[in-house]
């Protein structure tokens, strides 16, 4: 009886000790992870994830408060990179549902106040005071900051229209 209990107990103790040592020796600095995640993010401080800045969002994601797919402008590429960094499973459903969108300025109501131009984190809106503003589709991340500040409500986020170039085959149902 004792012969079998003792080695097992000894083995358990040894393995437990090794695990304890490993958790100390191989410990990964959490803040380090946050910094690495921040480097993956667009850095526009757009606030779409609910955090005030990309840095804060990275901290939250590292702490597990935000899911890996938290960053809408980053899309799947960022979500996958973050999930990989944290070793978390990735639920793409939340991202897939969201269609890509673009800011669009209604020329009839725009008064050229330049407020949108000032808040745009990617300089995607061009235009001077008292003049029509235009959106550069390439640079727009659909963060919605311009929509918030527009005094006349002339900016709307509209879904990107699909073209032959952007169209792709869907996932076959199996």
């Amino acid at each position, binding site marked *: 009886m004792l012969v079998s209990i003792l080695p097992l107990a000894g083995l358990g103790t040894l393995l437990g000790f090794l695990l304890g040592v490993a958790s100390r020796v191989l410990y990964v600095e959490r803040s380090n992870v946050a910094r690495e995640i921040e480097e993956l993010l*667009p*850095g*526009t*401080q757009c606030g779409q994830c609910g955090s005030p800045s990309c840095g804060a969002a990275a901290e939250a994601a590292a702490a597990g408060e935000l899911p890996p797919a938290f960053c809408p*402008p*980053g*899309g*799947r*590429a*960022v979500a996958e990179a973050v999930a990989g960094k944290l070793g978390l499973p990735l639920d793409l459903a939340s991202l897939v549902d969201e269609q890509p969108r673009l800011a669009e300025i209604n020329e009839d109501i725009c008064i050229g106040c330049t407020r949108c131009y000032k808040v*745009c*984190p*990617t*300089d*995607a809106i061009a235009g001077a005071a008292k003049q029509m503003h235009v959106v550069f589709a*390439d*640079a727009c*991340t659909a963060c919605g900051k311009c929509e918030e500040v527009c005094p006349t409500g002339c900016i709307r986020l509209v879904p990107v229209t*699909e*073209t*032959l170039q*952007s*169209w*792709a*085959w*869907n*996932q*076959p149902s*199996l």
Partner: protein
Amino acid sequence: MFSPRLRGGVHPPGHKELSNASPIRRFPMAERLYLPLQQHLGAPATPIVKVGERVRKGQLVASSQGTVSAPVHAPTSGVVRALAEHTAPHPSGLPVLAITLEPDGREEWDPSLAPVSDPLALPPEELCLRIGSAGIVGLGGATFPAAVKLGSSLKRGVDTLILNGGECEPYLTCDDRLMREEPGNIIRGALLMQHAVQARRVIVGIEDNKPQALAAIRKAAEGQGVEVRSVPSRYPMGSQKQLVQLLTGIELPAMSRAADSGVLMHNVATARAVYQALCQGRPLISRVVTLSGQALTHQGNWEVPLGTPASYLINYASGFDCAPARLIMGGPMMGIQLPDLNVPVIKGTSGILALTRKEINTDEPGPCVRCAGCVRACPMGLQPLEMAANIRNGDFEKARSLGLDDCVGCGACSYICPASLPLVHLFNYAKGELASRQREARKMEKTRALAQRREERLVRQAREREELMAARRAAAARKAAGEESPS
């Protein structure tokens, strides 16, 4: 003689007998023609006519734009009625910009069009230019602008021009009929192209299931220095990589163009279009289209003006025998499902098929049993089942490492799969997904750069403001001091 080892391939029932006995007939003008501005690979053409303008047959209505593009010509004389969106001949069925032309029935040719008296005397560059301005694209279905391909081949210097008379897709017989009826024009077109790229030799490859076409081309090629070869009929024999390897023994390296290996391939219909453009002064305004499938009453081949809607083609030429299960533009293996019947015939339309359920013969997808039929069928030596399994698991990168980029999408694997798995669909889905990820990543990169630039600008502006304020304060202080000091 070499005996290149060709791999894979399938033998789908040809169904060529449905349409290969009827000669090519001229198709009457439809009431409206829809000319999409993009009938080719590359940048869409720019319209140069206005709504309400009268155009003549063969007149340029949209000019090419950019290096890879092709112009569009009016298939008949008439009035431009609209410049509006029309259903694209594309699986998505998305709208594209198209010129709507109302024919006036007078068929007045553009007087500025004139044949070249001796095209072989022209310098090769000039020949390429003229072929380009005639709007000729690859008529086998790839629709790559012919002049671009010829031009780059001329610069690169090619040894062999291959004329593709494979027509390995089931049902399609338009090239077959063309080779039987106009072998001389095809050979002349081939010789013109040979001159345009300064190729040393020309080989015509024709599948051995078209003996009459083979004989006709052989006869026309006699004494012209053109080699005509029969190739075994097997799908996808008409694919560039397979035909080049069979005829020349050259295995085209991955991620390179055929011209890099000294080979240029063109379809027989393209050769005929080149002949028409140079020797008859006729730009590409019509093409031979096969109408086939057992859901149609009359199958056959028609010389159809570009822009003719599919509905008009089917109503006038045939009508349905029974309700078709699927309408297809192109061949059944690589063709697309027609989004609707308004889709016009374009430069790449080799056929319009109306298939019954029995002809399609597909089933609900089942589990893969690793029978490896797809591995044996793949002409590219890929392992479709492994790629599909990884794509279904969402591991697109692994699928790519297994050779996703080498897939030519011929559909031999899906055709043979006993579990009816949509393998090519999976591969195209994965390719689209990888491309969109790449786009997203590029946009992210750009966004980050823009955000950083703005950040720096804001900091700089703040500093400048700060400096300005400091300067003002200093000036004010100096002024105050100056006022004080004299006292």
